[in-house]
């Protein structure tokens, strides 16, 4: 038995066209609505932002004018800041050599120094005279004690000579730290 189908298997060209037309209409309506709404949002945002930018620019101009009116104060502050920085450097560079004398007293309490030279590097070279070996040993021991207390650094015994008179001539060098 053979089947007889009187209906068309495919929709007709007219229906396909109608369907396409309907879809395009929907798309066009959505797109147009989207464009309209987007344009509205963009327009409002533009107006708001433009207003804010104008307001900020006016505020900026006012603030800049106020700041420019206080240039003298700003100049004084900048000069002071600059000067204080320079003064701090100068204070650091100026070593308190007055603090060296108590150190000398600690090395040789009975005053065994003959001469003293201070170099720009901060190195102190001293010629000393001890009445006996015990005194000389005491001077060296005192130097080491000051080194341990971090009051001086790099102590060196440069020369040590026993003189005919029985006295001892010695040269030492060190760097005072001027630690508080």
């Amino acid at each position, binding site marked *: 038995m053979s089947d007889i189908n009187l209906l068309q298997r495919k929709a007709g060209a007219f229906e396909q066209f109608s369907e*396409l*037309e309907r879809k*395009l209409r929907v*798309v*066009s*309506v959505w*797109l*147009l609505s*989207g*464009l309209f709404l*987007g*344009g509205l949002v*963009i327009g409002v*945002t*533009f107006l708001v*932002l*433009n207003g804010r*930018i104008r307001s*900020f620019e006016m505020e*900026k101009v006012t*603030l*800049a004018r*106020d*700041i*420019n009116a*206080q*240039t003298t*104060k*700003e*100049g*004084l*502050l*900048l*000069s*002071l*800041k*600059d*000067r*204080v920085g*320079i*003064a*701090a*450097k*100068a*204070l650091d560079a*100026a*070593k*308190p*050599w*007055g*603090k*060296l*004398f108590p150190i000398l007293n600690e090395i040789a309490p009975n005053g065994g120094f*003959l*001469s*003293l*030279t*201070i*170099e*720009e590097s901060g190195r102190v070279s001293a010629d000393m005279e001890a009445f006996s070996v015990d005194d000389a040993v005491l001077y060296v021991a005192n130097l080491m004690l000051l080194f341990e207390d971090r009051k001086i650094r790099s102590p060196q015994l440069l020369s040590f000579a026993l003189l005919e008179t029985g006295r001892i001539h010695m040269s030492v060098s060190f760097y005072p730290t001027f630690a508080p």
Partner: protein
Amino acid sequence: MSTIQSTLRQYQNLVISGVIILFCVVGILFAAVPSIAKIQEMVQTTVTLSGEIRTLSEKQSALQNLDEISLREQLANALSAVPAERSFPTLFETVEGVAAQTNVAIKSMNLAGGTTLATPSASKISATEKKIGTRTVPFTITVEGGMSALENFITLTPNVRRLLRIKTFSITFPKDISPITISVDMDAFYEPLPTSVGKTKAILPTLTAADEEVITKLSQLPLVTTQTTEAPPPLIGRVKSDPFSP
């Protein structure tokens, strides 16, 4: 002609929809996209302006809170410690003052090295000055006095308002109490003041605790010059009437 008309009539809705879609696409491409880009730019501008206004507000507020009289006084103190020029009068007066206070006699005082007579800012900075971080006037002074007086001189010299640095010195200790003569190589510090303020937008520097400490220390140092300290000339923010004047 009638064929075209009938075709248009047949596809009228399709054409209208197509035109609308085309219009929307063109609108998106040539209006919406550039507008969005412009808005992004405007948002960026707003953020930048907002930041600038915050900075300017802070600067304005900080400037308003500053006391000009106090600033002038502090700067005058700092300038009496490290002047803007070599200021030989204050240098000689300071050394004389220290010598007088410590009872030592000045035998001689020589300015060492070549001291240019040009404006301070025109003079070249030596390697030592670069290392220290400020310009110096090197000089040598020969003083005579008792040992304790010389000790006092060495102690007081770096502790007066016109800041001085002892570079080198030698002492030959006397066998008795007779006065001794020593020669001391010294530096006096000076540095020209800055001559311009930064841009309006530039952040205002603040005085740190360390700065305040230095200011206090400087104000506590004795001023041994007889010259009065005046408020500093406001180099900044003032236009010179004669541009060739020093």
